[in-house]
């Protein structure tokens, strides 16, 4: 357990005191939703170091996001890797609690993901966002105070047999509990004057998973930088590193590069 305690200490040290952050986290979603009647296009590139061979495990996940209304948003995503087309998934998030005030909010949301995947199951870690067929159900809570934000999530994830006869090995655990804590910091601009200013944020997230039956676990740390151009185009660069783990994972460490573009109010009635 020492590595976990060490990581918690590092995490607390880095983000104690005056912290300026945004909640557009890189490895997790905040409890807030995208604007209603808007569409987002997101492309995520995962460049992870393969532990089994000296190569990069590349995974490409394009997503289309839709703000259905002020409380509900949907994602449709595809999973591709450097070997083949792997599968697809849908994600929904519903914001059920909102407490807003000037420059602050506290929000809670429930989310779910369902995915089908045809890839070979070569690790114990359960990941319906790209590796496993299955589903995930979770809760997120996010607080924003002026420019400080803190988010936490917990979820239950269930792996099912993958397609093309890629079944989960009989002795392998299929139930997992995930948890995360995320914070960030707004570096630039110091003062907002226009939508054209480039925003620069840094973030740090801790991501963990426990396999409920076997007791196996991992805990990762994931620092990231984020640029937001013209208040509409977001570019994230993150690095995920396993701090502690006792389960089989094929590629736990590596970079993620993501671009996301928001099209505001594209699904709405014509203005009179």
């Amino acid at each position: 357990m020492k590595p976990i305690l060490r990581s918690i200490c590092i995490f607390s040290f880095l983000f104690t005191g005056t912290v300026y952050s945004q909640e557009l986290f890189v490895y997790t979603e905040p409890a807030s939703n995208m604007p209603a009647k808007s569409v987002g296009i997101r492309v995520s590139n995962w460049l992870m170091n393969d532990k089994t061979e000296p190569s990069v495990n590349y995974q490409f996940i394009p997503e289309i996001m839709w703000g259905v209304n002020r409380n509900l948003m949907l994602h449709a995503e595809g999973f591709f890797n450097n070997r083949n087309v792997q599968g697809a998934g849908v994600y929904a998030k519903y914001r059920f609690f909102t407490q807003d005030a000037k420059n602050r909010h506290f929000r809670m949301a429930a989310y779910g993901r369902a995915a089908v995947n045809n890839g070979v199951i070569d690790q114990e870690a359960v990941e319906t966002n790209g590796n496993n067929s299955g589903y995930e159900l979770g809760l997120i809570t996010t607080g924003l105070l002026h420019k400080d934000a803190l988010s936490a999530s917990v979820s239950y994830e269930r792996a099912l047999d993958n397609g093309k006869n890629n079944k989960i090995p009989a002795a392998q655990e299929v139930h997992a509990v995930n948890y995360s804590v995320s914070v960030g910091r707004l570096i630039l601009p110091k003062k907002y004057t226009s939508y054209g200013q480039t925003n620069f944020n840094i973030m740090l997230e801790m991501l963990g998973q426990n396999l409920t039956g076997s007791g196996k676990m991992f805990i990762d740390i994931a620092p990231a930088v984020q640029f937001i151009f013209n208040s509409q185009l977001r570019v994230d660069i993150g690095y995920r590193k396993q701090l502690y783990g006792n389960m089989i994972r094929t590629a736990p460490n590596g970079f993620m590069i993501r671009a996301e573009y928001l099209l505001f109010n594209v699904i709405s009635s014509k203005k009179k």
Partner: protein
Amino acid sequence: MKALLIIVLSLFSFSLMAQKDTSKANQSIESVSLTAGGLTCSMCSKAIYKSLMKVPGVSKVDPDIENSGFTIYYKKDQPVNKKALEEAVEDAGFSVESIKINTAPKRKEI
């Protein structure tokens, strides 16, 4: 005498009311000042800005990103619909902290 007094007082109060109505009629809506809650970043502010621009009758929105404020201007002779403005902010994912209609005295016609 009593009846005369009542008539005089009634006429006086009617004239006061008429004066009040005239002062209202001489005012016109200049803009609407709105402060939104629940945001700090420019991406969130832009979402509200885009949503407000879609409200019927709105001609221009001046954002104050730093203070989550918006000054909303309407097209000539368009009525202000406060509910529509509030819904636009909520659709963007935020709340209305304050909303104030700014009026200006009508210019005298020569």
